[in-house]
């Protein structure tokens, strides 16, 4: 499928608005200055996208991800994914502990990733609901601890069921004084990108 520049511009514009909101909320949540930057918003073949993620997260310790389905007038899939050491740092920050306190994956780490997934996906939904007067409902975040490629493959499955191409909005998180590796992915399902384009330019 060939996508017009207009569609891609619409998606990028909405993605920037979402990411700005997410930066502010996430900073408040962990009481640290966090900057979330949009890395890319692009359409690509699902085989290429998944191979790229596997290459990027080429690690064997594993990652943690929270997957949320946003349903309503626009259907989106949301994934917050981070490597294990970053998830531990985020747990300490959220629990107001000295970083380095959390040494292994436990219920606190799982809850932290679930909570971050919940908050960030709600920001996405709120931003679209408020700015475009549409209805959206987020599901309860499903937390997976596994290889990054496995988490991403499960995330992309619903989109891949119905077509061969996925739109991926990729972002990364920057936190002063901490080495962090986490990403947020937003993926429209079905005809949602056309609806987003209509909403942006109408």
């Amino acid at each position, binding site marked *: *499928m060939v996508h017009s520049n207009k569609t891609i511009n619409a998606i990028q514009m909405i993605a920037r608005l979402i990411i700005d909101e997410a930066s502010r909320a996430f900073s408040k949540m962990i009481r640290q200055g966090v900057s979330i930057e949009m890395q890319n918003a692009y359409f690509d*073949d*699902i*085989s*290429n*996208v*998944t*191979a*790229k993620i*596997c*290459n990027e997260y080429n690690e*064997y310790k*594993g990652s943690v991800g929270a997957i949320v389905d946003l349903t309503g007038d626009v259907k989106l899939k949301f994934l917050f994914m981070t490597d294990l050491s970053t998830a531990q740092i985020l747990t300490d920050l959220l629990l107001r502990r000295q970083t380095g306190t959390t040494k292994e994956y436990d219920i606190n780490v799982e809850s932290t990733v679930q909570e971050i997934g919940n908050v960030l996906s709600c920001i996405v939904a709120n931003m679209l609901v408020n700015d475009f007067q549409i209805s959206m409902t987020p599901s309860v975040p*499903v937390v*997976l*601890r*596994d*290889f*990054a*490629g*496995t*988490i991403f*493959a*499960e995330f*992309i*499955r619903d989109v*891949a*069921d119905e*077509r*061969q*191409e996925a739109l991926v909005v990729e972002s990364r998180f920057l936190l002063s004084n901490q080495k962090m590796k986490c990403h947020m992915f937003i993926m429209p399902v079905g005809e949602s990108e056309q609806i987003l384009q209509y909403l942006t330019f109408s």
Partner: protein
Amino acid sequence: MNEMILIQVGVADIKVSKAPAMLMTNLGSCIAVCLYYEQGQIGGMLHLMMPRADEKALEYRGFKKEKYANTGIRELVYQIKQQFRVDHSMLTAKIFGGGRILQNVSLDIGADNAKAAQDILRELGIRIIASKVGGTKGYNIRFDLSTGKVRCQIFGEQEQEF
């Protein structure tokens, strides 16, 4: 000495190559079908997502054979034959994956995928010489075309060689 080429296989993807090369992928409920021709050190990997393409899927304009066991395995056999003139009767198979990653989903798509892959390989008369399927965690697969060995690591477990 030739350097090993690392080839990442994405979801719904086929890669076919000759030694020295390593085909790699990560699996959840998907299945990796590894076909190998020992004498020529030639092999290919299919990363399939679903058991069977129904009529609706076959009619879809953007239909991709690699997504399904019934069309993807035949396509993998075809690509090996096209590129290296290796007939399917000379190939052996190893299959991996098919975990039940999302526990809240009632459908066990991983088990269905594994069963479909086994059935299609049997239909084609390709012998399955090793398999590791099921579980609740992801798989990291590395298929070395120099030896035909597959290193399989299930998340949180020791790596095994097949």
